[in-house]
């Protein structure tokens, strides 16, 4: 089966900067694909080009092996934009039916499906409430229902986890995994690596509009590996800081306080580090040889300044009035 999404060397420039620069990626059918990058990396712009909301200045996007664009295929695609929004004064059920209608679903079946989804996500008794009267979490659920109500083959989610509490995050994760089980394709963007690591089959990391790496999770970890050790302390850390700073043993490390992730120096033996730690009086609750976490790879690739979540606050939305569409 052809890839649902193929992005071929697209470039998008705005008045004052280039948001996406010669980016290519292809999303195979039936998997969960993560588009990762720090804020302002060009994730939203890329997704908007896939959805045919922006036209690329260069390059092309193919959906379902067709150049016609997202609007033509909108009945087969569910899109959750980064900036969420519903009509605050409309009733929940009416909003859902309306949005399904704009995807070409007939009114009657839209109503039945919306009711079914509302029941499934525990909002059945709120279906006649106004959107504005719902809590923020409920509104997010309604928004998600609106995205998938027309039963799309391809779901594109822009930062789906932002603003969700742990319970709702879990609901969303379960739904996404359920989608893959049904053979559907999910493409989502995030800057939170933990989500990506738990969900993605394939991923692509971009920064400043350019691709840094893509592939399956295992491929990315292998090519960017090195030997890694995860150390967790239980109370005293002994001489840990000094040992980690020893460049003969440890090439790089990231300290999370009670836990640290080390990349071994070439030729170093993990047992030596363990021995040194125990001798210095450190109490360990975990010492594990591991492949690097996605977070670690991300920070290595992008640079630490961009890895912090709030690196460029509002960079995606503050691009001002100079854009060309």
């Amino acid at each position, binding site marked *: 089966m052809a890839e649902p999404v193929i992005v071929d060397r697209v470039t998008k420039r705005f008045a004052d900067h280039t948001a996406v620069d010669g980016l290519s990626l292809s999303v195979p059918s039936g998997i969960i694909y993560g588009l990762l990058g720090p804020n302002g990396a060009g994730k939203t712009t890329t997704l908007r080009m896939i959805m045919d909301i922006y036209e690329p200045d260069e390059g092309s996007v193919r959906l379902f092996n067709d150049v016609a664009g997202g609007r033509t295929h909108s009945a087969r695609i569910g899109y959750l934009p980064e900036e969420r*929004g*519903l*009509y*605050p004064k409309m009733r929940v059920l009416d909003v859902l039916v309306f949005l399904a209608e*704009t995807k070409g679903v007939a009114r009657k079946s839209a109503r039945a499906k919306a009711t079914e989804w509302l029941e499934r996500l525990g909002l059945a008794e709120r279906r006649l409430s106004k959107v504005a009267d719902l809590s923020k979490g409920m509104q997010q659920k309604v928004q998600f229902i609106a995205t998938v109500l027309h039963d799309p083959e391809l779901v594109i989610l822009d930062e789906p986890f932002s603003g969700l509490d742990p319970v709702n995050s879990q609901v969303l994760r379960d739904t996404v995994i359920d989608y893959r089980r049904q053979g559907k394709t999910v493409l989502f963007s995030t800057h939170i690596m933990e989500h990506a690591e738990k969900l993605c089959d394939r991923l692509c990391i971009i920064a400043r509009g350019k691709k840094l790496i893509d592939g399956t999770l295992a491929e990315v970890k292998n090519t960017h590996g090195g030997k890694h050790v995860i150390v967790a302390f239980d109370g005293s850390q002994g001489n840990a800081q000094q040992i980690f700073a020893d460049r003969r043993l440890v090439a790089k490390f990231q300290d999370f306080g009670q836990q640290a992730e080390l990349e071994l120096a070439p030729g170093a033996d993990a047992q030596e580090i363990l021995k040194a730690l125990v001798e210095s009086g450190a109490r360990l609750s975990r010492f594990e040889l591991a492949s690097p976490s996605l977070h670690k790879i991300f920070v290595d690739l992008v640079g630490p300044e961009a890895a912090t979540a709030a690196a460029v606050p509002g960079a995606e939305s*503050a691009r001002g*009035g100079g854009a060309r569409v």
Partner: protein
Amino acid sequence: MYKVWAIIRREFVERVRTKWFWVSAILGPVLFAGIIVFQIMQSVGGGVRKIAIVDAGKLGYGTRIVEALGASRTIRADGVQLGPAVLDSLTSLVEAKQLNGFLIVDDSLPADGKAEYRASNLSLQTTEELQRTLNRVVEKARLEGKGVNPAVVDWAQALRVTLDQKKCQRGACTKESAGESFILAYVMAILLFMAILLYGVNVMSSVLEEKKDRIVEVLVSSLRPFQLMLGKVIGAGAVSFFQFVIWGVSARLLISLRVPIARALGADTASAQTMALPHVPFATLTVFMAFFLGGFLLYSAMFAAVGAMSSNEQEARQAQQPVTYLLMIAYLSIIGLTNDPSSTFARTLSMVPFTSPIATPVRWTAGSMGTGELVASLAMLVVGILGVTWIAARIYRVGILMTGKRPTMKELVRWVRTA
């Protein structure tokens, strides 16, 4: 097309569900009923004026005037002989609103034809009736002075000539007075101005709402921006059309019920029957609706673009001003248009698409426009709508996804050129 239909329906249903729609839908007929009741009440008793006829002479002209006014439906007169302090006490009665006014005549009335009327409020209806009555009294007195038999004079004065007024235009004559066609044109212009402005601004706020509440991104992922704009404009237009239908039907209903209403109020049913109602020919109604629709399409496209380029209400209010001024030009010219509907100024206004939605129906109603000119005006309007919509759609397309500062004129031009 199904998608556009969904947009139209949502726009219509959500708007008709609001309180404001029904408030204005009900307010129209209530206002109209008020006008009818007021007119009826005027003929019942509220409209009767109490005046005194002060006679400063001895020949009894005051009494003659009181007698002549005896048949009047709107004036009730009492005669008073002028004495010391009579004028002062009458003046204080007028000030206390117990008397509407008083007329002062003396014996020289038939000789120099002069009388004086003092009142707290000089209504045209009263003074005209007084003048008519005085003329007859004077005429009779003068003829009698020359030895004519009073019975002959009475016989001569008993006949009233009625002037059957008909307006001839475009080869057909209809029963309509000059005053009526002026009022009709004026009312039409005001209705057009208010409806276009009100519902145009509705389109703007609806666009702005979708942009502010971030719904627009989902919508443009399944509809082309032009389809979205089209749906909104048609939806809001349908709402205003619906509003007009409600007003029109209720007005018709009230007019046909005016006789029972008059009876219920205890008024003379004949007066309700003869109530001045402008005659609206079908052709005029068609022209009115055609130019309303045209004007609405033209202006709401502009208002949609204004909504798309703004990010909040304040910005939108500022940005809408040039559009509103454009419409104001036509509105402010109504008096000029109705005074001289065939002047070069009026002709120009009815050819320019931005002013023709108001100017052309006014000129048509005033009867100074041929069918050829009407067609030309309509054609210009259609061209205007196409051009303006083309530009507005481009601004809309870029604007709806834009956040941050409002675009400058230069940026707007670039949007239009590159979109």
